[in-house]
């Protein structure tokens, strides 16, 4: 794709879903933290696969299989380059959740009741429950980093906490899905690496907005989902530093991940093959690669600036509404506003907003421990992306005013 400089009007045209009416209002999609919209380019690549290339990957030597395998491995190079790592360090999964499960499973035989696994109260359930299962299976202690009452971290205190409790595994989210807060993970990674911890970063929310340089971050694992990065559903990535990745026990077993199989014994291939069994989501992988192409065709700095300005514009308007409480940090945020209105139930607010074509989300956002920390039953979440406009913000705020009037 040719490089494009950032022009929101051109960008909007790339996303067909955005140009529709909902409940007789133009759709204002503020649920990108749940899943992003897809550019036509990504949709076309998926269609192209099914129409022209459709064949299974690897081991086939016929023309279609050949073509699609080449593209499939090209996609791995493409994603690896995006994160500044090696292709063999990229494992295809069905999403961030599976990636974390794969790591936790792969570490099970390596931990025991002398070990500590450390998470934080900010995590998505996907970065909590697999570690609970690991801790149940191994006897390892599960500890959470301290979190300030406003759900921000005191990084120095956290570094001390890490040094004190010496976790064998530290699993942290790069960006909170509920709040949009960006955690300053570099010092935490350094503190953990210094004492020999394995560091797992949940990049589901961060991978697109922050385009992290994983070689520089020096974490051991990083996970993300294509569908939150303009890509298709049902595909994700597990990045693992090769030497460590390759030591994980295999996860799912079956075809392709094996070297030899007899009825009673099998030997496994090396990573990444060892973790990729069964027919993969080929259309998904090619679509994901197209999404990366699309992101690469934009200037990442420009996207960040636009998103930051849009977020400032939105948060300044929201802050001014009496009765609104915002839980998101307004600095270091990818563009998510988490809030409530007085004692109103977030369900009512999101339902009323929907009647104006404003798509936001309400509930616990798969972060019940964070809700408990904030003493909330739930919240409304409006999450922005670079394809949103200032007009979207205005529509959102105006509709919100009308909803609040209905509730008062």
């Amino acid at each position, binding site marked *: 794709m040719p490089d494009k400089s950032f022009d929101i009007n051109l960008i909007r045209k790339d996303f067909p879903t955005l140009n529709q009416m909902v409940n007789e209002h133009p759709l204002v999609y503020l649920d990108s933290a749940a899943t992003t919209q897809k550019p036509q380019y990504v949709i076309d690549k998926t269609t192209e696969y099914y129409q022209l290339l459709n064949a299974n990957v690897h081991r086939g030597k016929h023309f279609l299989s050949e073509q699609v395998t080449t593209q499939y491995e090209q996609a791995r190079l493409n994603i690896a380059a995006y994160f500044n790592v090696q292709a063999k360090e990229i494992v295809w999964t069905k999403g961030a959740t599976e990636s974390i499960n794969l790591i936790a499973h792969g570490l099970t035989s390596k931990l025991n009741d002398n070990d500590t696994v450390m998470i934080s109260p900010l995590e998505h359930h996907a970065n909590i429950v697999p570690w609970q299962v690991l801790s149940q299976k191994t006897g390892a202690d599960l500890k959470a980093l301290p979190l300030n009452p406003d759900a921000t971290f005191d990084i120095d205190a956290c570094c001390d906490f890490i040094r004190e409790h010496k976790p064998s595994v530290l699993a942290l989210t790069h960006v909170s899905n509920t709040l949009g807060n960006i955690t300053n993970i570099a010092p935490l990674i350094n503190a953990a690496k210094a004492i020999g911890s394995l560091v797992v970063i949940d990049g589901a929310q961060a991978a697109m907005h922050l385009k992290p340089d994983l070689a520089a971050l020096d974490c051991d694992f990083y996970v993300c989902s294509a569908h939150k990065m303009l890509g298709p559903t049902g595909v994700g990535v597990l990045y693992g530093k090769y030497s460590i990745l390759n030591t994980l026990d295999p996860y799912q077993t079956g075809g392709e991940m094996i070297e030899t199989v007899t009825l009673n014994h099998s030997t496994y291939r090396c990573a990444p093959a060892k973790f990729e069994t069964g027919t993969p989501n080929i259309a998904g992988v090619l679509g994901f690669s197209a999404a990366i192409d699309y992101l690469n065709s934009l200037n990442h700095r420009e996207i960040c600036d636009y998103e930051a300005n849009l977020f400032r514009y939105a948060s300044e308007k929201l802050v001014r509404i009496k009765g609104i409480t915002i839980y998101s940090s307004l600095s270091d945020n990818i563009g998510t506003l988490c809030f409530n209105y007085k004692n109103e139930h977030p*369900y009512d607010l999101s339902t*009323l907003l929907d009647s104006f074509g404003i798509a936001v989300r309400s*509930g616990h956002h798969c972060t019940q421990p964070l809700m408990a920390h904030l003493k909330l039953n739930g919240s409304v979440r409006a999450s922005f992306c670079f394809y949103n406009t200032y007009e979207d913000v205005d529509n959102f705020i105006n509709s919100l005013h009308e909803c609040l009037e*209905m*509730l008062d």
Partner: protein
Amino acid sequence: MTKTYKKLSQSIENAATWQQKYREIMLLGKTLPPLNDILKTSDALVPGCESKVWMYIDFDLTENTLLVIGDSDTRIIKGLLALILAMYNGLTPQQILTINAFAEFEKLGLIKHLSASRGNGVKAMVDKIHTTALTKVS
């Protein structure tokens, strides 16, 4: 279908916009007497919903009618519950089984609130009323 229901549903059916519909629904919710806190037990809770919904079904032996009470911590669901209660309360099991809540909600333009995708408790409530009515008939 009870008279109350007919009256209540009229206002929703006549609402021209979604906003007016929700306004009517929320007003309806306000007419529903709140459940006493001691009745808001986890047993009475419809599981798996973002909004909390509690419900009880009683059978009046002398009148041979069902009595349903319920509450919710959200205004919209509470309004929908009020509608459901008006639809079914005081009817005999036989009468209840002739009612198609889906068709009614369809008519009011509220079908999505009863659809499979909504884990909001309203559908679960309707299902439970019908199941209970069925046991009383047979």
